[in-house]
């Protein structure tokens, strides 16, 4: 008799904090820039001196509207600012200007591709704009330093519904969000620079063999700043919560409610965090120093017009129209510019699949080496289109095409000229090709006989002879012509 098992369904919601790529901070004119010496991008406003006032950064609002619209959120006609009060040395005013009951965007969704090729829609509860806090620096034994360069940097907080049920779904959502905000130019979303941070809410719905349902406490893991930490924290919590409930039947949502935990990166574990006494009461109230944000249709439409095709739609189009594989289409939709190169090359008359091979071949290798996007490698749509056409028209073979591409990446130039200069253009002189074929057949009587015999080794022998002809031609003979000619010569008499 096998032991009946519990059915465990992880339920995860994710808060994603995205620092926006604005020139200046949310409420002052200080530079929004990572990595400068401590307290160099500061002014009386962002260090919270008495009597100074915040002034809203319109670009930050537009970036946020863009993200909200791309997430299919309702962008509210009227939103306002609120103060969220808590005391912490990196928060100079001891309140954060945020949005409480009227967020900029609400009720959206993000379609997330899953590893098995399926997609899942994750609902977005709200997206609101706020100012980031500074950073406490613990590099001195007796003191804590405070760097306020980050204080006042615009931060978009995107809160999902608890729609994710596995580590994979969480990771797919987080990566899709990173791709989206980068795509829109709203954020660089660079994890090393802290542009993106995650706070997952995790609990388990455990269905017991007798059909009863148990839910574990909702755990919010604070301040995860890498994908690895996110993955680790969610996976760890799923295990930990189940084990905790198994050893203590009162480890339930009813019993314990919501709790916060931190992430110990070195040990790969979540750790209990002592609750701050006031953590539950932020004493929100409307920020009297700022006027509400009124979004009219004209503004909303102007922002929407700047969004263009989104990555998921483009990937689908590439698969449907260009007949690309999921992997190919996905690789071409990490950023908007790479796909624009492909689309322009196709518009210039080249074959989409051929262009894709070029983009994901030498160009992708170069991009990988330089750590940049495909488009940023610098090969233009026209260069790609010309080379693709040459290959498809037999003016150059694919192998030689690779060499031309390598040369274009290194030195630029038009494909035909580069191919000519490198003496890589296909030989179209029938007599010359026939001569290479005859020489190859004469020099390799064994394989030639095998082909003529049509036995089980003939295919391999044919390819050997093909190779010999290509070698003799210096790679310049069009393979299709060689194949045809060779087949004719060796057909059984």
């Amino acid at each position: 008799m096998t032991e009946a098992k519990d059915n465990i369904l992880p339920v995860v919601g994710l808060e994603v904090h995205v620092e926006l790529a604005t020139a200046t901070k949310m409420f002052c004119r200080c530079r929004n820039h990572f990595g400068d010496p401590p307290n160099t991008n500061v002014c009386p406003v962002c260090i919270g001196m008495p009597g100074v006032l915040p002034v809203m950064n319109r670009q930050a609002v537009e970036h946020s509207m863009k993200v909200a619209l791309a997430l299919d959120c309702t962008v509210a006609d009227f939103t306002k600012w609120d103060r969220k009060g808590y005391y912490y040395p990196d928060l100079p005013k001891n309140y954060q200007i945020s949005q409480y009951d009227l967020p900029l965007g609400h009720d959206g969704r993000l379609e997330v591709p899953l590893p098995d090729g399926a997609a899942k829609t994750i609902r977005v509860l709200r997206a609101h704009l706020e100012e980031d806090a500074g950073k406490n620096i613990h590099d001195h034994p007796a003191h804590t330093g405070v760097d306020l360069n980050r204080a006042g940097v615009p931060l978009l907080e995107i809160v999902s519904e608890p729609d994710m049920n596995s580590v994979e779904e969480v990771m797919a959502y987080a990566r899709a969000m990173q791709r989206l905000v980068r795509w829109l130019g709203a954020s660089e979303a660079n994890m090393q620079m802290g542009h993106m941070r995650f706070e997952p809410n995790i609990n388990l719905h455990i269905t017991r063999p007798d059909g009863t349902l148990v839910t574990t406490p909702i755990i919010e893991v604070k301040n995860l700043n890498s994908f690895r930490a996110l993955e680790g924290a969610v996976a760890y919590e799923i295990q930990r919560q189940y084990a905790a409930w198994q050893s203590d039947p009162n480890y339930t949502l009813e019993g314990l409610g919501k709790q916060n935990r931190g992430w110990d990166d070195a040990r790969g574990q979540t750790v209990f965090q002592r609750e701050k006494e006031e953590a539950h009461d932020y004493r929100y109230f409307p920020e009297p120093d700022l006027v509400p944000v009124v979004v009219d249709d004209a503004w909303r439409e102007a922002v929407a017009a700047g969004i263009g095709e989104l990555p998921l739609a483009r990937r689908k189009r590439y698969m449907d129209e260009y007949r690309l594989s999921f992997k190919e289409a996905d690789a071409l939709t990490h950023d908007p510019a790479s796909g624009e190169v492909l689309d322009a090359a196709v518009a210039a008359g080249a074959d989409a699949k051929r262009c894709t091979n070029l983009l994901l071949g030498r160009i992708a290798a170069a991009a990988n080496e330089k750590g940049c996007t495909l488009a940023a490698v610098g090969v233009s749509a026209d260069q790609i289109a010309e080379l693709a056409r040459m290959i498809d028209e037999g003016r150059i073979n694919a192998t030689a095409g690779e060499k031309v591409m390598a040369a274009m990446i290194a030195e630029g130039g038009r494909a035909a000229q580069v191919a000519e200069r490198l003496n890589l253009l296909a030989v179209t002189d029938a007599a010359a090709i026939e001569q290479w074929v005859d020489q190859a057949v004469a020099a390799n009587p064994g394989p030639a006989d095998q082909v003529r015999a049509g036995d089980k080794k003939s295919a391999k022998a044919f390819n050997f002879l093909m190779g010999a002809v290509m070698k003799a031609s210096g790679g310049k003979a069009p393979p299709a012509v060689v194949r045809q000619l060779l087949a004719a010569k060796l057909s059984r008499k």
Partner: protein
Amino acid sequence: MSDIPDMSALELRDAIAAGKVGAAEATRSYLQAIEKHEPAVAAFNEVHAERAIQRAEQIDADRAAGRPLGALAGVPVAVKDNMCTPYGRTTCSSKMLAAFRAPYLATAVDKLEQAGAVVIGKTNMDEFAMGSSTEHSAFKPTRNPWDADRVPGGSSGGSAAAVSARMCAAALGSDTGGSIRQPASFCGVVGFKPTYGRVSRYGLVAFGSSLDQIGPLTGDLADCALITGVIAGHDPRDSTSIPQPVPDYLASIDTPPATLRIGLPREFYSEALDAEINEAIHGAAKVYKSQGAEIVDVSLPHSRIDIDAAGNLSSYAVAAYYIVCMAEASSNLARYDGVHYGHRTAEPVDDIIELYSRTRAEGFGEEVKRRIMLGTYALSSGYYDAYYLKALKVRRLIANDFTEAFKACDVLLCPATPTTAFKIGEKTADPLTMYLADIYTISLNLAGLPGLALPAGLSRAGLPIGMQLIGPVLSEETLLRAGRMYEKASGVMRLRSPIVNGN
């Protein structure tokens, strides 16, 4: 020129422009007045004598060189010590900021200086503008130039006393619930709180941000129009400042409104009002009537003042006002934590929480602590709806009452204070009694409206009585002209406090 401080700001400005009086001479003469009266009045936290003389000498040099002079060229003014200046300290009369030097200049003060005014010093106030008597200054109480045993009112008590004692030609104050108008009335000067947003709050240390407004305290209405015109206007650094052009208030000040309907809000004439003040305000109404104004009866139901059998006053407006301003104050004053600037405890502390609590316990006075605690309570989860949200609803109803009333009249005439200046120490024991000193002034702060306080005569005890004119949003010009109309018709203007007269 011992009579320079006797001149109005406008007269002095004109005399300097005409070369009859030197700017440096004027400043020196005011510095002499300060030397003479300050020991008795204690209006200033800091006098910037050296800088003031330098600035005045520059005005004289500009004039000599034929360079254009500003609208206040050479006029010595005092500034309440909650407006940030990069020179001297900005203390808010608090131990917390006793040594604080701001690296920036408040827009209103900047505008004064751009117009050539000479900032002569920073004036005492109730700590962080919380109070109605200037007794809550962490440094010293200021005394009323009309009676040294009495308070000058507050929180802009130092500014009002300085103008009243002619230690400056005019002053800036700030008004959250009456902090310009109440001390102006107690000291027998003109005090004006413009429409919320008419004057930039940039550089004004915040108390109740949705209520705070900077305004002038002056000897007469022409000076009030002059200063208001200089400091008003939109400021890109204050999002709540109103983007509307500023009329030339001074140009129209002596033209009485062609027609004027004056509303007497019946709720303000209850048993709570001192009989002499009641008499004075009705006297003012008669003056207006004699000048052709129409007097109408209006109602502000939600500004009603009730008195129970035991004689205790209560008012929706006072309740709503204190909840809103304390809630905002609890947040605005959170930044004074000893971490970034200002007072920090010298005691050894175990952790950051102890640093915060010790610093704040030492740095803030009793009244400030009281308001921070009450405001924190009102915003706490579970109490927010019952207090803060309800106060916002009352605020809306009060504002609606004014809108309704202004359908029947152009301006409202009412008392500025329920009593004349009270004795030092009389109300410090009972904060609630002190809060009720604002019953006639706070309603319009809640509604964001402009309010003008001007002298309406003296009581039998020889203390100034203030009256108040209230207008709709951006009715500054009408209010100033209506005030001037009374001033000229009644002859009650530029009252000389005994300290100036008596020598």
